[in-house]
C-alpha cells in the first residue's frame, strides 16, 4: 500500500547514527541528559519511525506521532538548557530526526480526509502552526546546542523571558508608536487620500494629473522624508505621524480613484435613468463598488504606517517608542530586547491588519472574493 516515505527512512538512519554516537552532550555546567532521558528520546523516535511507515489507522497514527515527536523534541531542547554549547553531534542528529518526523507528520495531516467543516479548519490551522513551532524548536535547539553567542541570535525562550519581564517598557513603546503616531497618521493620511480622490473624481483634469503622479510617488522611498519631518515637527510623535500621513496618502488616493471607476456601465446607466444626482450615484453605487479597492489600500497602509512610524523613530525620539527601543538596544547589544520589540511589532502589525480585514469582510460581504463564489 503506502511506499516508504523518505523522511521516515532518513529519520531512522539519523536515529541509529545518533544512538551510535552517544552521549548527547558534554556537561558544561548543569547535568546533561540522564540515561533514562536519552533512552526515552531514542525509543520515542524509533517508535515514531515505525508508526509513520506502518500505515495503521491514519488518525491514531498521527496523534501518536504528534505526541511522541514533540515529547522527544522538548526533552532534547529542555535538556540542553544550561549546557549551552555542550551538544555533541548525536544531539543534532536526533533533533534532525525529530524534525523530519514532524515533517512527515505534517504530510500525514495534510493527507487526512477531514469530514466536518470544523475538522477541515483545524487541519488548515494545525499544519502551519506545527511548521511555526518547529522553526522555534530548531532555533532553540541549535542556538543552545551549538552555543551561538547571545548577541548574535538569542534562543526564543530567553526572548520570551525578556518579553515577559519587560511588559511595562514594551507597553509604553507600543502606546507611543502605535496608539499615538500610527493611529493619528493612518487616520489623517487615509482620510486625506480619500477626500482628495473624491475631489479628483469630481474634477477630471485633477484626476488625470494626480493619477500618474500618485502612481510614481507610490514607488518612491518616501520613508526618506523622516529626518525632515523630525526637523519640522520635533522629536515627539507628531513627526512620526506626519511620515505616516505622507506614506499612506498615495496608496489611498490611487486605489480610491481606481475603485470609483470600477462600477459597471450598466449600473451607471441605471442610475442615470433614475435621474440620480452626482452624490446619490456616489453614495448608492460608486462608493459601495469601490469598497474592495478602498479596503485594499487600508490593508496595505496598515503595514506601511507601522513601518513609517518605527523607521522615523530611528531618526530621533523622546526616550520611548518601538523604533527608539530597537535602535538603542541594538547599540547596547541587548539583542533579546530587540527581538522582544520585534515580536511586539509583529503582533501589533497582524492585529492591525486583522482588524481591517475583519471590517472588510463585514462591509464587502457581497464581493465574490469574500463570499467565496
Amino acid at each position, binding site marked *: 500500500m503506502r511506499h516508504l516515505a523518505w523522511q521516515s527512512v532518513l529519520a531512522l538512519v539519523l536515529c541509529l547514527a545518533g544512538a551510535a554516537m552517544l552521549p548527547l552532550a558534554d556537561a558544561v555546567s548543569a547535568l546533561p541528559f540522564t540515561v533514562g532521558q536519552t533512552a526515552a528520546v531514542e525509543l520515542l523516535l524509533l517508535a515514531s519511525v515505525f508508526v509513520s511507515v506502518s500505515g495503521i489507522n491514519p488518525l491514531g497514527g498521527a496523534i501518536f506521532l504528534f505526541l511522541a515527536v514533540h515529547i522527544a523534541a522538548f526533552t532534547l531542547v529542555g535538556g540542553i538548557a544550561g549546557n549551552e554549547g555542550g551538544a555533541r553531534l548525536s544531539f543534532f542528529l536526533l533533533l534532525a530526526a525529530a524534525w523530519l518526523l514532524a*515533517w512527515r507528520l505534517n504530510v500525514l495531516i*495534510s493527507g487526512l480526509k477531514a469530514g466536518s467543516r470544523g475538522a477541515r479548519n483545524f487541519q488548515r490551522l494545525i499544519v502551519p502552526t506545527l511548521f511555526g513551532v518547529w522553526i522555534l524548536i530548531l532555533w532553540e535547539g541549535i542556538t543552545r546546542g551549538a552555543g551561538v553567542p547571545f548577541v548574535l541570535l538569542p534562543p526564543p525562550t530567553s526572548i520570551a523571558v525578556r518579553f515577559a519581564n519587560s511588559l511595562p517598557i514594551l507597553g509604553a513603546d507600543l502606546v507611543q508608536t502605535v496608539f499615538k503616531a500610527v493611529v493619528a497618521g493612518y487616520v489623517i493620511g487615509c482620510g486625506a487620500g480619500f477626500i482628495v480622490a473624491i475631489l479628483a473624481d469630481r474634477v477630471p483634469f485633477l484626476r488625470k494629473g494626480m493619477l500618474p503622479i500618485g502612481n510614481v510617488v507610490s514607488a518612491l522611498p518616501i520613508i526618506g522624508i523622516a529626518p525632515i519631518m523630525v526637523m519640522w515637527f520635533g522629536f515627539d510623535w507628531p513627526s512620526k505621524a506626519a511620515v505616516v500621513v505622507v506614506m499612506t496618502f498615495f496608496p489611498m488616493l490611487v486605489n480610491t480613484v481606481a475603485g470609483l471607476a470600477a462600477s459597471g456601465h450598466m449600473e451607471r446607466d441605471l442610475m442615470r435613468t433614475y435621474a440620480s444626482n452626482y452624490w446619490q450615484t456616489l453614495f448608492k453605487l460608486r462608493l459601495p463598488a469601490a469598497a474592495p479597492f478602498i479596503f485594499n489600500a487600508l490593508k496595505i497602509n496598515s503595514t506601511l504606517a507601522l513601518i513609517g512610524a518605527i523607521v522615523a523613530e530611528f531618526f530621533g525620539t523622546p526616550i520611548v517608542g518601538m523604533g527608539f527601543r530597537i535602535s538603542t538596544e541594538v547599540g547596547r547589544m541587548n539583542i533579546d530586547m530587540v527581538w522582544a520589540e520585534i515580536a511586539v511589532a509583529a503582533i501589533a502589525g497582524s492585529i492591525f491588519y486583522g482588524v481591517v480585514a475583519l471590517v472588510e469582510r463585514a462591509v464587502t460581504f457581497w464581493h465574490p472574493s469574500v463570499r467565496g463564489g
Partner: protein
Amino acid sequence: MDSFRDKIVPVSVIVAAILVVWYVAAIFMNAPYQRELNARAHVTPDLGAFIGQTWAQRKPTLPAPHQIAENFFKNTFLVKITSRRSLVYNSWVTLSSTMAGFASGTLLGILIAVGIVHVPVLDRSLMPWIIASQTIPILAIAPMVVVVFAAIGITGLIPKALISTYLSFFPVAVGMVKGLRSPDILHLDLMHTYNASKVQAFWKLRVPASMPFLFTSMKVAVAASLVGAIVAELPTGAVAGIGAKLLAGSYYSQTIDMWSALVAGSVVAVLLVATVGVVGRFVELRMGARP
C-alpha cells in the same frame, strides 16, 4: 496626441502648481529664521529682497526647489564620481546592494513559489506564514541585522543586500504563486488531454501565464528592496549611500543635502521600477502579447 492632452498637460499643470505652493511655503517656513538673522545683522530689507533671502538660506527649514536642483546638479555632475560627496557614488552604493538583494530575493521567491505550487505540504505549512509576514513591519529588523553582522565582522554590501533580499522575497513569492496558479481549468484540462507531463505543463502553460504576475510583483519588490537598502544604511554610522547621506544631513542640519539625497533616491527608484517595467513588457511581447 491623446496622451499629450490626457496626461502631459494635467500632470505638468499640477507639478507647476506644486512648485508654486512650494515656493510660497518656503517663504513662510523660512521667514522666522530670516527675520532673526536680519534683526541680528540690523538690516531691514524690503519685501522683495526678503523673499529672495528666504529662498537662499544656507540651512533653510524648507529649501526652495531651485536650491535643491542646484545642489543635486552640482553633486551629480560637477563633483568627481569617486568623491564621498558625489550623489552618483552614493547612489551607486545603495543601488548595488539593492540590485544584489533584489536579484537574490526574486530568485528565492520564484523557487519557493515553484515549491509551494508543486508540494502540497509546503503550500499548507509555508504559505500562511508568507502571507502573514506581509502584515508585519519586517523593516524593523534592519538595524539588528546590520549590527549583528558587523559584530561578526561582515559589513558593507552583504547585510544590506540581505535585508533587501528579505523584503523583496515576500511579494515575489506571493505574486508568483498566484501567477503559477492562474491558468484556467480549461487550459490545464487541455494539457491533460495532450497527456503533457508536469514539467511540460509547467514550462508551456504555468510559466507563461505567470509572467504578468511576476513582473507586477517585481515592481513592488524592487521598490521595497531600495527602501530596505536605504534604511539598512542608517545604523552603520553614515559611511556611504543614500541613507547615510540622509542621516549625515540630519546630524548637521544640512537640509539641502537631505533633499537632494531624497531626489537621488527617487531617481533611483523610478529607474529601477521603469527597468523592471520595460523588461516585463519585452518579455510579454516576446511571448506574443498584443503590442
